[in-house]
């Protein structure tokens, strides 16, 4: 089973889409529809039918910009503020303009959004300052509906091949090297354009349960996109702005601010007292959450037991049926009932995910990275707070731009030696007779991430992390051992995770100020707008280790008033008078 075989095959296509989760299928569909004669390949290390962050569906859109309920200007302003000012607005604005068209298109695919009893979109929380929440009552059918469209459009789907490195030629992308996750056979895909949709780096920190796969993100999203972009020479932006989310303790399902909040649920401390007013996920909110967890008032709970029975049933229906059906089993196992007990909460392990924060491959409003012909979309591309609809919309933008790019260029020549070198790197753990298995390399990396890299961030600790991670890297390069093709996939994931850990340490040390609340709380530095109102861009340096530079935030296209800038600051409930 999963026996390692020798083999290498080479194919070519106009556009290669890596990752068949959310952004990827949309990118492939849009590229194919714009140029039906083009050869578009959609590749996934799992199976496109159920791969990615929305494997089992999604309970709603958090960021729908629907005419009559919100405007692109309002949305761009909100995201700029939520992201502490560091945001290239053009990409956010373009998303906001185009996402309604994508909603309608998804609707026509059979993905259903909540409508009122007149068949009109039932956007929640209507007021003129903008409202963005659109529930999805049958959100569990998302992947099924997407897959149906892919099959109808006759997209070439390649399952169970994991891309390990991009091929480049000067400053252009030339294709990708992939390896079969069940046979270790290689596949070289020459491509005129490549769209990376590989999701978050969700296996970076270790969850408190200690179970390697009990992560907030789909555990298959182990940061290959970040690592591949890095090794290809692309720039990655603001990696120090980690993703950290509130969670049900031990069960890594979100704590449902969007579901329970509008219905009256809220976060409390152990005394049942509210300590933050607003459960909207921001770094500042997470800082208050963290402080309460660490204080004598902790831990933190989700309080629903004050709500009407009708409301609780509605919350259960949404949370237990649609997004993570095991949530109901979890509460049942612990004997917790929303009606009676409060639900213990915690914070998630750290990760990279621009979908919820801003840590991603640097892209412009066309989803182009800093490498020609290379695109990125979804959780791994740095359009901030982008969520699922952002992945669909920016995937569409990438697909349409990439197919045009591919029409005008020939294949880029690449160095055959790169393939041999990658083959040697990938197969090294198969050439040994014993050694350290990938799960131990991964566990140690992620344990070090928790010990030294998760906030509050301290210079001396992060420098220690770099030393210890270098030791793990040494072991990985010289002593990692795998016995079959499945473990080989895990060894490649372990390498991506280690790359991401190195990038997290480097980026966090580089920005010597605190920003985005808990996400980058450098306790030995204050916030410093004068020197740090900028992106930080990380690339692979000459000595094969990360290097960082500052990049100016592009001039705003939507102005932010001074008294709006602090919208997410000081959220702690002030003491009763």
């Amino acid at each position, binding site marked *: *089973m*999963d026996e390692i075989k020798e083999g290498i095959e080479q194919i070519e296509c106009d556009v290669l889409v890596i990752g068949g989760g959310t952004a990827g299928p949309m990118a492939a569909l849009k590229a194919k529809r714009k140029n039906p004669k083009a050869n578009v390949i959609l590749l996934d290390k*799992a*199976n496109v*039918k*159920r*791969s*990615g962050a929305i*494997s*089992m569906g999604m309970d709603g859109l958090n960021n729908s910009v629907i005419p009559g309920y919100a405007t692109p200007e309002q949305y761009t302003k909100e995201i700029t503020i939520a992201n502490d000012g560091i945001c290239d607005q053009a990409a956010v604005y373009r998303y906001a303009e185009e996402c309604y068209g994508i909603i309608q298109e998804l609707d026509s695919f059979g993905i259903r959004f909540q409508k009122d009893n007149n068949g009109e979109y039932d956007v929640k929380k209507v007021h003129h300052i903008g409202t963005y929440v659109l529930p999805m009552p049958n959100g*569990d059918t998302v992947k099924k509906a997407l897959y149906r469209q892919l099959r109808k459009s006759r997209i070439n789907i390649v*399952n*169970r091949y994991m891309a390990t490195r991009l091929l480049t030629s000067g400053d252009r992308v030339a294709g990708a090297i992939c390896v079969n*996750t*069940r046979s270790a056979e290689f596949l070289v895909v020459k491509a005129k354009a490549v769209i990376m949709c590989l999701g978050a780096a969700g296996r970076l920190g270790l*969850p408190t*349960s*200690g*179970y*390697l*796969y*009990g*992560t907030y993100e*789909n*555990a*298959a999203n182990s940061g290959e996109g970040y690592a591949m972009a890095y090794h290809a020479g692309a720039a990655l932006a603001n990696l120090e702005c980690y993703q950290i989310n509130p969670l049900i303790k*031990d*069960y*890594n399902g979100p704590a449902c601010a969007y579901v329970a909040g509008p219905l009256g649920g809220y976060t409390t401390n152990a005394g049942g007292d509210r300590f933050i007013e607003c459960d909207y996920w921001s770094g500042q909110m997470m800082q208050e959450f963290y402080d309460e967890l660490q204080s004598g008032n902790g831990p933190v709970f989700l309080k629903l037991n004050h709500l009407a029975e009708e409301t609780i049933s509605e919350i259960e229906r949404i949370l237990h049926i649609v997004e*993570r*059906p*095991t949530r109901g*089993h*979890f509460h049942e*196992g*612990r004997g917790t009932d929303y009606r009676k007990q409060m639900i213990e909460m915690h914070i998630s392990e750290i990760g990279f995910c621009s979908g919820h924060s801003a840590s991603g491959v640097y892209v412009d409003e066309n989803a182009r990275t800093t490498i020609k012909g290379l695109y990125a979309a979804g959780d791994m591309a740095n359009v901030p707070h982008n969520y699922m609809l952002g992945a669909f919309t920016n995937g569409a933008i990438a697909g349409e731009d990439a197919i045009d790019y591919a029409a005008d260029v020939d294949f880029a020549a690449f160095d055959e030696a790169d393939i041999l070198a990658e083959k040697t790197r990938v197969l090294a753990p198969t050439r040994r007779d*014993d*050694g*350290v*298995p990938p799960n131990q390399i991964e566990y140690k990396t992620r344990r070090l991430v928790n010990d030294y890299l998760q906030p509050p961030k301290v210079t001396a600790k992060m420098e220690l992390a770099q030393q210890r991670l270098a030791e793990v890297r040494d072991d990985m390069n010289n*002593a990692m*051992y795998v016995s079959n093709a*499945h473990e080989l*996939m*895990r060894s490649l994931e372990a390498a991506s995770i280690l790359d991401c850990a190195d990038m997290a340490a480097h980026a966090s040390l580089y920005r010597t100020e605190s920003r985005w609340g808990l996400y980058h709380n450098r306790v030995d530095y204050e916030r410093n707008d004068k020197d740090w109102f900028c992106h930080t861009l990380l690339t692979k340096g000459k000595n094969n280790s990360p290097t960082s530079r500052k990049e100016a935030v592009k001039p705003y296209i939507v102005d932010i008033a001074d008294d709006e800038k602090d919208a997410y600051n000081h959220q702690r409930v002030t003491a009763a008078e």
Partner: protein
Amino acid sequence: MPLAQSSTSVPVVVNDDLCIADKGCTVCVEVCPLDVLRITDMADGRKTAHMEYDECWYCMPCEADCPTGAVKVNLPYLLK
């Protein structure tokens, strides 16, 4: 360093009597994002799906998509 094996209880349970792996079904194996399920031969010569690797995100497609209701996903012991 030499290797040792250690036991672990796995969250995904397959009812062999309902599983139709014998008929060529690999639905659960295919839909798993982490690729942890495999088809195996049983003592009586029939085939069944089982959890080969304890690397589960308890996301449920294997249970939801199984055509005969043979698959049950429990929460991994460490976090339940």
